[in-house]
């Protein structure tokens, strides 16, 4: 517990972390409102009945998560790589020589931040987004329905896994630039470019690619073409757990 507290002190004593977290919550809310407006307006103007039936007001208001996840992934990466860059990893590990304990404490601290960002930012985005959607004359989602609450809860979980993935890649690569590249490719670029791939591959990726599958937990309207919310999150969590296990193994053995 004291090691977690120590990691918490390290996080909150960096002004950049505090500011980034606050900014990211605001960004998620702002993007939620914008995306909701864009999508709802399009539907209101030219949507067919089928389009309207497939519209997921909750997911629309949470779509800022696509960008926010990068900030959260970066935070996860930096929690480890900044210690290697500054050399403070040596005093840190001299203070906590059981390597796994230090990495676990970092994981707990960064997970807490990611959950708070995801829940606070998600709730703000949802509330703003639904107002915008109602304003466009469409049916909005409301809190208290099981699936909506699960999606909001899931947004935090999704960001937590993203942060842990960043931390794990950071612990393996130790370099900020390398780890960032991997996080951005896996979480953001691969899903974007999958659309340009042959349909079979694109469909497979939509179903199984960790970040795409994981995002299902932040949706409400079911889509038979892809996994259900918890099955999809399970894929992401399993992937994250594997990478994290690898990171613990490597971090535990290597010279610093």
């Amino acid at each position, binding site marked *: 517990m*004291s*090691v977690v*507290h*120590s*990691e918490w*002190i*390290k996080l909150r*004593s*960096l*002004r*950049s972390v505090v500011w980034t977290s606050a900014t990211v919550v605001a960004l998620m809310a702002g993007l939620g409102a914008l995306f909701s407006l864009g999508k709802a307006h399009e539907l209101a103007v030219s949507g067919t009945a089928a389009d309207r039936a497939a519209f997921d007001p909750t997911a629309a208001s949470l779509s800022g998560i696509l960008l926010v996840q990068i900030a959260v992934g970066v935070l996860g990466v930096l929690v480890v790589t*900044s*210690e290697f860059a*500054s*050399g*403070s*990893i*040596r*005093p*840190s*590990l*001299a*203070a*906590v*020589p*059981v390597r796994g304990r230090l990495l676990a404490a970092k994981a707990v601290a960064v997970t807490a931040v990611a959950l708070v960002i995801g829940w606070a930012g998600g709730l703000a985005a949802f509330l703003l987004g639904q107002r915008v959607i109602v304003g466009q004359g469409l049916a909005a989602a409301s809190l208290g329905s099981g699936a909506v609450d699960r999606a909001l809860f899931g947004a935090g979980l999704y960001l937590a896994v993203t942060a842990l993935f960043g931390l794990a890649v950071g612990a393996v690569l130790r370099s900020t630039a390398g780890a960032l590249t991997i996080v951005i490719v896996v979480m953001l670029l691969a899903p974007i470019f999958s659309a340009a791939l042959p349909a079979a591959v694109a469909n497979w990726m939509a179903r199984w690619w960790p970040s795409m599958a994981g995002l299902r937990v932040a949706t409400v309207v079911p889509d038979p073409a892809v996994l259900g919310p918890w099955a999809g999150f399970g894929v992401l969590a399993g992937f994250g757990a594997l990478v994290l296990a690898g990171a613990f193994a490597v971090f535990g*053995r290597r*010279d*610093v």
Partner: protein
Amino acid sequence: MIELRGLTKRFGDTTAVDDLTCTFRPGVVTGFLGPNGAGKTTTMLMTLGLQRPTAGRALLGGRHYRELPVPMREVGALLDARAVHHSRSGRNHLLALATSNGLPHRRVDEVLDQVGLTAVAGKAAGTYSLGMSQRLGIAGALLGDPPILLFDEPVNGLDPSGIAWARTLMRDLAAEGRTVVVSSHLMSEMEQTADHLVVIGKGRLIADTSLPDFLASQASAGVLVRAADAGFAGALRAAGAQVVAQGDGGLLVGGLDAYAVGKLALVSGTVLTELSPRRSSLEEVFMAMTSESVEFSGGAR
């Protein structure tokens, strides 16, 4: 007490530390000496469990570093003073360290006061001068009030008053019965700080002796003589001494001690303006020894 037993570290085909066996005892300041790349830092990193020995072990009071339940209460270390996140304040850096070992937070203010950083403790560590960083590093080592202290080049970047302060601190820590190991390039500094010396070259142990023994172990450099009569050099040679004329007119005499030289001057009726036994400085002894170690290990010359 730190015991190194056959400690060895290889990086590829470089042997940084080579079968090092020695003991750092409590109650004295041990100077850990060696030229650049001798393996001092690597030895300390292995002692602290930060690097894995290729062979052998380093034990602290009989235990491996990783087995220490509250490491900072047992061992304090200053490695690279700049190894602090540059935008975190000195106080928060120490606070995070103290918290990780469950040390009371008042210790942070105590050590800040002890190293004289209280006034700048709230500033980002990246703004500190090298000397201030060294003090912050020393503060970190002192946090847990440990019986064993390792300092890797602690006076690097300190001004003369800072060096004097560090020297007093090391001596005081040893006088309290702690094991204090200080690595340094400043041989003159060791001469005034250390009681005991462990000298390594190319990763190998060259000497493990008390400071006076270390100096005595080297042949004395001789007696420096300045005579009014230029013919005195001939008289010395006739008496069986080796005489080397110094550029400034002095004579460096080997093979005769000061008494014999004085007596010879009396007999030959010469006035001596200087007669001083020359002890080799630690610097000279160190240079002589480590240059040998380079030859022993077949280093290219």
